């Protein structure tokens, strides 16, 4: 089952078994963002404590498969204490990590400009544990599981920004 071990790397199973930053934060001041995968019922809830351009704290709730929940846990660990700017950069990097391989799998990657662009997104950002999720791209139907937390985070940050600009 070599394919399976690419998908379910030990670090992923570790985050699934012992998810980091589980729990709630009082809303407000924290902002709550929810994401659903309508195909399989995976659910991610994020509590984001963002102030002065920094993600001061993050807590997560929700349920789903090992990939969605491990990705949520790893993301929370990666962004806690980071600036919003770096967090957004990391979102871009992670999505690029998933989509580059997605296009290659579909045979669309012919060295086109978008590939090069995404590749440059990957430079200069340390993914750390998150690199373990790279194996997911060999299983295209699971990419949505891995990206759910990140898309939810992006929506949460967008909502916070929109609220800040109108207040």
């Amino acid at each position, binding site marked *: 089952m070599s394919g399976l071990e690419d998908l379910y790397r030990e670090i992923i199973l570790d985050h699934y078994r012992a998810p980091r930053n589980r729990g709630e934060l009082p809303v407000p001041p924290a902002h709550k963002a929810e994401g659903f995968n309508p195909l399989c019922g995976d659910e991610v809830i994020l509590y984001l404590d963002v102030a002065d351009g920094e993600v001061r704290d993050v807590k997560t709730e929700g349920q789903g498969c090992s990939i969605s929940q491990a990705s949520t846990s790893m993301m929370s660990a990666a962004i806690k204490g980071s600036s919003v700017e770096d967090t957004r950069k990391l979102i871009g990097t992670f999505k690029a990590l998933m989509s580059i391989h997605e296009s290659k799998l579909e045979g669309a990657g012919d060295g086109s400009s978008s590939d090069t662009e995404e590749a440059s997104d990957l430079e200069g950002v340390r993914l750390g544990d998150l690199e373990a999720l790279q194996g997911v791209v060999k*299983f295209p139907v699971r990419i949505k599981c891995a990206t759910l937390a990140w898309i939810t985070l992006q929506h949460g940050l967008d909502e916070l920004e929109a609220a800040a600009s109108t207040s």
Partner: protein
Amino acid sequence: MTMSLDVARIQADFPILKRQVNGRRIVYLDSASSSEKPVQVLDAMDRLYRESYANVHRGVYTIAEETTAAFENARSKVASFLGANEPHEVVFVRNATEAINLVAYTWARANVRPGDAIVLTELEHHANIVPWHILAAERDIELRWIPLRSDYLLDLTNLEQLLDGAKLLAFSAMSNVLGTITDVRRMTDAAHAAGALALVDACQSAPHVATDVRAWDADFVACSAHKMLGPSGIGALWARRELLETMPPFLGGGEMISNVTTQGFTSNEIPWKFEAGTPAITEAVGWGAAVDYLTGLGMDAVREHEIGLTGYALHRLRERFGEELAIYGPLDTSQRGGAISFLFRGIHAHDISQVVDQHGVCVRAGHHCAKPLMGVLGVPATTRASVYIYNDENDIDALVEALAAAEAFFAF
């Protein structure tokens, strides 16, 4: 044990069952989602395209007439499979979903008034929920729900009260998640006693249990070819002639008219009134071949095989995994079809499906397009294994072994 069907001979008719998945023999246990196709269906479709293909109901040349005859012959086969009075009561649509939508957009919009109610059940597929939500959002109608009992059968205690003031009772004859079989006649009788019509979603039951729209005393019946050995892209709405004749048309276009002027149009006769545009011709012919195949086996034998194999699966799963594997659905095989939904040791359905796939075992993971039911069950998703005519005890044994591997992989 299951002597009702010669499964080895049936398996030989399904080319896809000869392939391997991840180095293992394929074990296809997702027929509740869509069935595989026998060579008889593939050949019928191939032959039409190679030997006699033209559009239907148009040309006067030989192959156009041949294709039209083949298409209408398929309608006759489906009609008799469903127990219809006449072929013209069968409207070809894309699938059961479209059949239900057709009723919602034509009959219901002409007959359901603000203040009326439509009664559904808690075990419905989204196909028999969302069209009614859309209607309810347009006009002030009430959706009422027949609840599920803890034994996974419908609670019909308050059926008469629920139907009071209702225009339609729309329900599934067999749950795609729980396998639960509905007492169709009990439901249609109650609907008619309350002055309501009865729509039966037979998408899950038609492949497995004999359908008899007249014995059911139904008003509308929806089904899909792809779950019963036929191709995707075609299904049927059956309705009584007098209903179809009074219903307004659905989609407008060619075929569905008898005359068109710059001032307006008049509708064609039934069923073509509801079949705008070039239909799924080859798919209809394929469906006809699928119906022949099932009729050749005999639906009683098909059902007997399902009961036997489902019983074996329930027994093996419970014997091997005990309380670690929670089955959602009736355990009495006379009350259920061959779809077995379960939770296993808290491992997410997605992860189970992924691991058993490494063993060549194809099972469905998710909410099975029945999110309200998932809410009633209190689970986000289940794994579902479902059997059909080409499955045997070896397939169930392979599932059990693959689940044991998933258990080992996620043990913590």
